[in-house]
């Protein structure tokens, strides 16, 4: 008679192929299933662990769905008022130039209420990293229109679709700040497939590494779904993102080593 395999037989050191990084706390994440925030948190934590810079890293959280990020990462973090994270990070980095400093911001936080802080930190060439999670909507407050909401896209404050004549055009702030002399590394990635996750992680690593060079700000935009706000299932949402967001916000590096990549 064959013996039934139990869980204890499988969970063994030699069978381990993947492990949660020690930099993620045990707290259960509050994100909706399928949301990109959780994946991006994990990647940032993995990179900090791999670079062995836990004790040298300070993170700034925004106001948005990721406002509670400090519950999940085992590093020192500060919580900023809505939109002001780059201002906090400016002070932190200037006072402690040897540390690794990053902000983590949604599109509302970074590209609406915090536009001035974003642009000026980029333009001054502050030597920290901005992780910019773009889901084209205000997730936390219940799906209102964001600066990055696509034309004709519905949200609770554009219930008939974004009418660009009345509500303005989507703001491609990443391409905009890439044109400023103060940015050193600017890239746009996604985390909806394993291949994209691997590329995003490389970009995160590169952003942290470039802080060592002291040559300016690094910004990593991550396109993500907000399935709750878009009122779709996670799978539908990822499909919708690929079909609609990617053409408008193309994936890939935008500025490397202080030089704009010519896409034409």
């Amino acid at each position, binding site marked *: 008679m064959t013996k039934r395999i139990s869980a204890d037989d499988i969970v063994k050191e030699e069978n381990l192929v993947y492990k949660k990084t020690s930099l993620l706390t045990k707290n259960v994440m509050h994100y909706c299933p399928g949301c990109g925030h959780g994946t991006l948190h994990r990647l940032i934590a993995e990179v900090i662990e791999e670079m062995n810079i836990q004790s040298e890293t300070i993170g700034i959280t925004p106001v948005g769905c990721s406002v509670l990020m400090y519950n999940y990462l085992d590093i020192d973090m500060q919580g900023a*008022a809505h939109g002001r994270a780059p201002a906090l990070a400016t002070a932190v980095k200037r006072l402690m130039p040897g540390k690794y400093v990053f902000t983590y911001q949604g599109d509302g936080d970074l590209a*609406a209420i915090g536009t001035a802080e974003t642009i000026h930190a980029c333009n001054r060439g502050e030597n920290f990293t901005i992780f910019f999670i773009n889901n084209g909507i205000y997730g936390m*407050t219940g799906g*209102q*229109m964001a*600066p990055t909401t696509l034309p004709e896209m519905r949200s609770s*404050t554009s219930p*008939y679709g974004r009418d660009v004549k009345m509500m303005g055009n989507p703001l491609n702030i990443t391409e905009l700040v890439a044109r400023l002399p103060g940015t050193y590394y600017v890239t746009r990635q996604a985390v909806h497939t394993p291949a994209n996750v691997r590329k995003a992680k490389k970009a995160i690593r590169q952003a942290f590494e470039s802080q060592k060079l002291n040559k300016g700000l690094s910004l990593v935009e991550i396109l993500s779904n907000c399935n709750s706000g878009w009122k779709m299932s996670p799978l539908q949402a990822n499909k919708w993102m690929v079909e609609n967001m990617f053409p408008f916000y193309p994936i890939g590096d935008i500025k490397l080593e202080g030089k704009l990549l010519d896409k034409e």
Partner: protein
Amino acid sequence: MKELKLMKGNEAIAEAAIRAGADAYFGYPITPQSEILEYLMLERPHERTGMIVLQAESEVAAINMVYGGAACGRKVITSSSSPGISLKQEGISYMAGSELPCLVVNVVRGGPGLGTIQPSQSDYFQAVKGGGHGDYRLLVLAPQSVQEMADFVGLGFDLAFKYRNPVMILTDGALGQMMEKVWFDEQKPRQTVFPSWATTGKSTDRERNIITSLNLDSLKQEKHNQKIQDKYKKMKENEVRFEKIECDNAEYLFIAYGTSARICQKSVQLARERGIKAGLLRPITLFPFPEKAVLELANLVKGMLAVEMSTGQMVEDVKLAVKGKVKVEHFGRMGGVIPSPDEILIALENLIKKIS
């Protein structure tokens, strides 16, 4: 003809703004008041009355849009909740200085800081003592029902233009989120004639209009300050509003506004069932505060309990008003916790024990 609806307090404010003939709304999403902007976007007021609605990039931008619209003599409204109202304070101060009318709605949530999104009354000081920098006041209206949320929009615009001063509706997340019956007035037409001070374009028959809060000459600034102080004095003479509930033979008095006043009405019932002669004074205007009514009652009752969802802010105005004539205590919950009618009654019973 009046029209009956079942609506959230937030939605009632939005609908009332359209019907009051508002010219524009500028705002930025924040819980627990985002329904105001959402309702307006859904209703397409532009098609109903020509009213403009815009989601601004921040509260700072929104209040400055309000400034611009108001300076053209238009009826402009904005709304937010506590953290956003803090951001608007600079703009509100400029508007008070420039003598501009507007309506600001604060659907208060618990602070300080990002705090909680649950209802609170912890922005009382900010609302009634000025809020931003400089010597100024807002006229502050405190609704207690969805009906009053709607009614105070029209009233607020009238008072704002009467005194050329910002008016605030100070409410909270509970009133914003709850639904009750509400009767709406008929649609008022938007104004077509604008005040003579408005920057509507200089015609040949008048001097140019300048809207500013700047006065580099200190003596001129002092005179300007005197002028706006005189307006506040007039508000105190003419605009005090309050409601007395079961005050006639009351021996003990609750003083509470907004949501707390609603809860206290239940506490009054419970107290009277137990033979305690309790009453309620409900300030409707928080600035100007009903000082005289409070003082009159101070001569009749044995004790007063100010009930607020805060550590005790309005209670200071109550104490100032009673001039030491009667014992005044505060009862409150904080951080978004709503007191129950029972615990308010217990607080009253504790006060009674202390007095007798």
